């Protein structure tokens, strides 16, 4: 093979690899000028426990080692999430516990686009009594409810995050 063929081969290889290299770094997407509000909430608080005493017949029907006198059942309730900005509603949804048996935490992960600039943010995350359930409305009302009202400056291209701190039983706003 002649030296010119070697040079041609080398140049072709380099050109080919350069194309492949660029194909691995194609600029895609663009920074947004809009702002966004993200709600990332998780709670295991929404459980209502109802208990009753077992009857003597029920106890007799059970094996000796299973005769606990009280029968309790946990029912998870839905939470209502309402979000307003400067009084205008931007989100209103009902959040249910996860899992087929509704025994998993309530999780909300939503993001809404908002205009940039300072706005009054109001978030309400409150338990909702299910009229079809056999629990008392007071039991639902006794569950933790979360709320936050704050003036927030939404920066262009940035997300304002609202999270739920289960430990502190409070909503928290995260901004960077």
């Amino acid at each position, binding site marked *: *093979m002649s030296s010119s063929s070697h040079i*041609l*081969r080398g140049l*072709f*290889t*380099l050109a080919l*690899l*350069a194309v*492949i*290299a660029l*194909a*691995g*770094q*194609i*600029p*895609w*997407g*663009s*920074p*947004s000028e*809009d*702002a*966004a509000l*993200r709600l*990332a909430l*998780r709670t295991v608080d929404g459980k209502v426990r109802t208990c009753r005493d077992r009857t003597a017949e029920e106890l007799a029907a059970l094996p000796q080692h299973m005769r606990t006198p009280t029968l309790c059942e946990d029912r998870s309730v839905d939470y209502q999430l309402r979000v307003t900005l400067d009084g205008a509603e931007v989100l209103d949804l009902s959040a249910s516990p*996860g*899992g087929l048996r509704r025994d*998993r*935490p309530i*999780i909300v*992960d939503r993001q809404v*686009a908002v205009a940039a600039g300072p706005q009054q943010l109001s978030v309400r995350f409150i338990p909702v009594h299910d009229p079809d359930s056999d629990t008392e409305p007071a039991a639902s009302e006794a569950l933790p409810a979360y709320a936050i009202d704050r003036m927030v400056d939404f920066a262009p*291209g*940035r*997300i304002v*995050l609202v*999270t739920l701190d289960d430990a502190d039983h409070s909503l928290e706003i*995260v*901004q*960077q």
Partner: protein
Amino acid sequence: MPREPEPNQGAAATPDRRPGSLLHPRPAAAAWLDRRLAPIDGLFNRIYTSEHNPLYKSGALAITFLAVTLVTGIYLFLFYKVAEPYESVARIDANWFGSLMRSAHRYSADLAVLAVAIHALKMVLSGRTWGPRALAWVTGLILLFVVLLCGWTGLIMAWDVQGQLVAIEGARLADLLPVLSEPLSRSFADPDGVGRAFFFMNLFLHVALPLGFIGLFWLHSSRVARAPLFPPKPIHRYAIGAVIVLSIILPVPLPPAADLLAVSMEIPLDIFYAFWLPLARSVPAWAHLLAWLTAATVALSVPWWWRPRDREFSRSSVDEARCSGCTQCYHDCPYEAITMVQRSVPSDLSEIVARVDPSLCVACGICSGSCAPMGVGPAGRTGRDQLRATDEFIHQRNPAADNVVLITCSHGLGSHPKLLSVPGVLPFASGCSGSVHTSVIELLLRSGAGGVFVLTCPGRDCLYREGPQWLHERVYNDREAELQPRVDKRRVRLAGFAASEVDRATEALGAFRFELSELGEAAREQDVKLEFECEPVDVQ
């Protein structure tokens, strides 16, 4: 003085279509696509020649590139920290050697996917995806998925803007599968949600997945004999050198760090691994998952729908009455479809006999060429069938001393009109050149042909892997079923050219013809009955 041969015309220019010339069964669409893409193959052959065409070794090249990722990955692993993923990558990238390692790691990973894609495309176009090859196809796809998974975890490891999007969109897909108790994507909602445990698990997957690759690769190559791990050394070294040079000239820039509180951002999209991100960002997660499932179903089912409707493999069988138990076909079979077993009926010939497993045989016919007593091969293509076809050819075409019989592999260049423009050339089509029995060459020469030019596929692009290699060994190096010493080997020429190398092949054919003219006229025998001269080989 030899008479001046006449140029081929009319019927003489039409290649023979004899039993030995059965084309490899593949869908008509594959042949059509193959022709459309032939210019690319031609370009690579012009630049690299068919001996060093990287497209012909794409599967083995993928292993070369993965080996580079493994070596460079070990170096990167030493300095990577799960507690500060982006910062540790930035520190690696800050010095020239670290940058070289990171760039080589990334480029070789990209090239591995590209090589796998080319390898798969070649299999599809040549119809090597069905029948006994279905296992290799399916395991190959799984291997590709493992490589992609490794790549995705690798992109996430760096925790830059691209890795962030890969993680988020991957999590959205995972959340659709009913296996996680809580949505994975929630981890990426909060900058504090992505912690050391996540990156440790990601690193574990990135390191552990290649281990699964080894087992899958064994399965992938389990139906081929002598599967090469790496491409031939020149290609292997050239590929590694090219990656290093590219990494020095064009180091991969480090994108900005992940920012979970940015609404959107520009990323340097790696189309080899993150090609799906634009779709993922523009459709709901379920539609994205549906696209993946559809693509996987279509690809995995290729062996069942991408196949000829009216063709089957004409698989080899063994004539035990002729098998001498020499084991040559067992050694030569490129697909390990032949085993040696005890005879069910005792024979003076041998205690063992060859047996073909039809589920492994792809009907390449290479065993026909390897059997001296001509007792094995696909129906209609055994050595005896080839001799019958040759006899018929001799009676029809009456090759003379100034004729060159051009035996062409049906899967390669074939009897291209340009080849037939060489004066005195008589085309004689065969199946894979590796299936051509040397007795065919002997019969043609002893019947008066001036020379025999066997035009094979390039040795590195044989449809059946080892055809040209075995033929060369039989003709020149006395491999069993060898060309007999009584044959003047100066009158035989083997040459491997790709379909796009017509000019080079024509030049070689012309040169051979010129060499023959220097040798003078060959002796001609009357009524050569070569078939009956074949004796069983000595088992010892």
